[in-house]
């Protein structure tokens, strides 16, 4: 026991904690409930947001900045160069232009499916659980049935069944949404069952609040983090699902998505011809979009499960305490040396 310190000397870890508390108290402006729902900014969240915002901007603004993606030239399969930053396809189409349009198409599908699936799951999950009784049993049965339907095979069958001419963006979106809402609905149902039994819900009913207000104003805000996380997950699933469908040639007719790009690259023997600039960019965009959305999802998880947040703050505090301790040790060593 060489580093015995007097009892009244505060430990570095205590000092750090006190500092945190003091900052909390000083910075306590009246916070609204919405503030509580925002995830804490962490490096991971920043990376995720940067990826998603970057890809979204590319998808939204890119198509205006590039040329016609369908234009056929006589310079097929040129590697990346000054004129074509990402090279050209077998038929001489500009890969960068295609990529911009394809990103837009994939994001459109992803967003559309995300919204549709979230609305479906919120309705069947929350309303059924709140009403209870027959409504709950029926909605629960419905979501269980949809849950055990194998998603991709069904999507393939439906997409194959609908004639190619009438297989538009919406058809694919609806099909993807129908096969992906059930799991989220079950999670929301479980959460609603827990929330609706709380005293504050009973209290608002006793106050004479109307049922729709109880659901929308008292219950829904407490489910928002779950819904947000389910939405992000639905977008990832939709982008991947659509890419899969398009890759096997069952995507929306005359749409350009990352999946159709991969489909044409596959059909044009991009891999065996070594035209990496043709199939790598769409693959990388899909991977980065998935990564970014997942990172955002992890941050939302922290709101749902505050234990994760406490763990992170605890680690941060421990790291700072260790650093402070090292500094103190270094300083006292110097003092000893000076003496």
């Amino acid at each position, binding site marked *: 026991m060489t580093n015995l310190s007097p009892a009244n000397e505060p430990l570095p870890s205590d000092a750090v904690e006190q500092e945190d508390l003091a900052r909390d108290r000083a910075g306590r402006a*009246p916070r609204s409930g919405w503030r509580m729902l925002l995830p804490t900014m962490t490096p991971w969240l920043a990376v995720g947001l940067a990826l998603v915002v970057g890809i979204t901007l590319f998808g939204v603004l890119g198509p205006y900045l590039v040329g016609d993606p369908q234009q056929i030239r006589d310079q097929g399969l040129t590697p990346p160069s000054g004129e074509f930053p990402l090279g050209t396809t077998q038929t001489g189409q500009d890969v960068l232009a295609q990529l911009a349009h394809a990103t837009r198409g994939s994001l459109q599908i992803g967003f559309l499916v995300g919204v549709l699936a979230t609305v479906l799951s919120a309705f069947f999950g929350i309303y059924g659980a709140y009403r209870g009784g027959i409504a709950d049993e029926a909605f629960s049965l419905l979501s269980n049935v949809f849950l055990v339907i194998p998603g991709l095979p069904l999507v393939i069958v439906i997409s194959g069944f609908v004639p190619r001419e009438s297989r538009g963006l919406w058809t694919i979106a609806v099909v993807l949404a129908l096969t992906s809402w059930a799991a989220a609905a079950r999670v929301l149902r479980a959460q609603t069952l827990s929330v609706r039994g709380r005293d*504050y819900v*009973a209290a608002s009913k*006793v106050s*004479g609040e109307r049922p729709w207000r109880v659901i929308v104003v008292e219950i829904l*805000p*407490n489910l928002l983090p779950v819904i947000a996380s389910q939405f992000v997950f639905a977008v990832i699933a939709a982008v991947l699902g659509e890419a899969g469908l398009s890759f096997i040639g069952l995507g929306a007719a005359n749409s350009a998505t990352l999946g159709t790009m991969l489909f044409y690259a596959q059909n044009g023997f991009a891999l065996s011809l070594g035209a990496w600039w043709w199939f790598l960019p769409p693959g990388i965009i899909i991977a980065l979009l998935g990564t970014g959305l997942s990172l955002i999802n992890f941050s939302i998880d922290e709101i749902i499960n505050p234990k994760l947040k406490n763990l992170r703050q605890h680690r941060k505090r421990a790291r700072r305490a260790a650093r402070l301790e090292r500094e103190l040790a270094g300083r006292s060593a110097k003092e000893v040396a000076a003496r």
Partner: protein
Amino acid sequence: MTRVHVSDLVKEYTMRTGLRRSRLRAVDHVSLDLVPGRTVALVGESGSGKSTIAKILTRMESPTSGTVDVRLDDGTPVRGALYRRQVQMVFQDPFASLNPFHSIEHHVARPLRIHQRTRTADETHERVVEMLERVNLTPGAEFAARRPHELSGGQRQRVAIARALAPGSQVLIADEPVSMLDVSIRLGVLNLLGRLQREDRLAVLYITHDLATARHFSDEIVVLYRGRVVERGPADAVILDPHHDYTKLLAMAAPDPERVDRVTLGQEATDRGEIDNSVCFDHFAGEWQEAGVPADRAREPARPRSA
């Protein structure tokens, strides 16, 4: 002023275990009256049916049989939206009864808006501040902007009281309002309830398992045991001169080092369900009556088995 006349309240729950069904009678022919300016304490152990009665009175549950008759002074029956305006409740757990998402202002403002007590947003805000200051949360404007997690248990319970009084309610059901609070602040909250009751001439049903606060706070005590009323009378009479075995047991449950043995003996008796709940001692009539039967039959005198 509003009066509540509860008669022959019965609530049965259906229990399902596998394919079997059985019925549990949680409340068995309970009758009581709530009148303006008086507090009735409903005392009993967990599972005796106290909270079921509160739920029926606040219309969160409907009774299996029996009636809850609420009337204004002029004899008009209170129904529908007016019922919600007249009969309000303070919940047991102040940490669960306020929505963590919303500000304190929201909790007090909603009842005002629902029952059209205020019209404009400014007027509502003013009333909210006024209500908060009435329950000793000053400055009211500052508390109104806060969110529930920033308040202590006692402060939250005061918000819950302000919310219950916001619609201009005349009947207050307080379901163990202080049992989740620190001992040191219980008296403050109880005194606040007492003051508000005197000011507004509220009819209060105070549900508790603690005889000591029941005596401090109420005029009449009704002792509930396994769904039935086993003793009723003026607060002092019930506590100082308990007749029923169960009431004696409750009175003895207050910690007293000299009586430890007898309390534990009695506790075993209730656990085995050996206390007779077929009779009720009515201090007003000064006699034993049959319990768990319709009110008109209960007038017939009875003898307790154990006495």
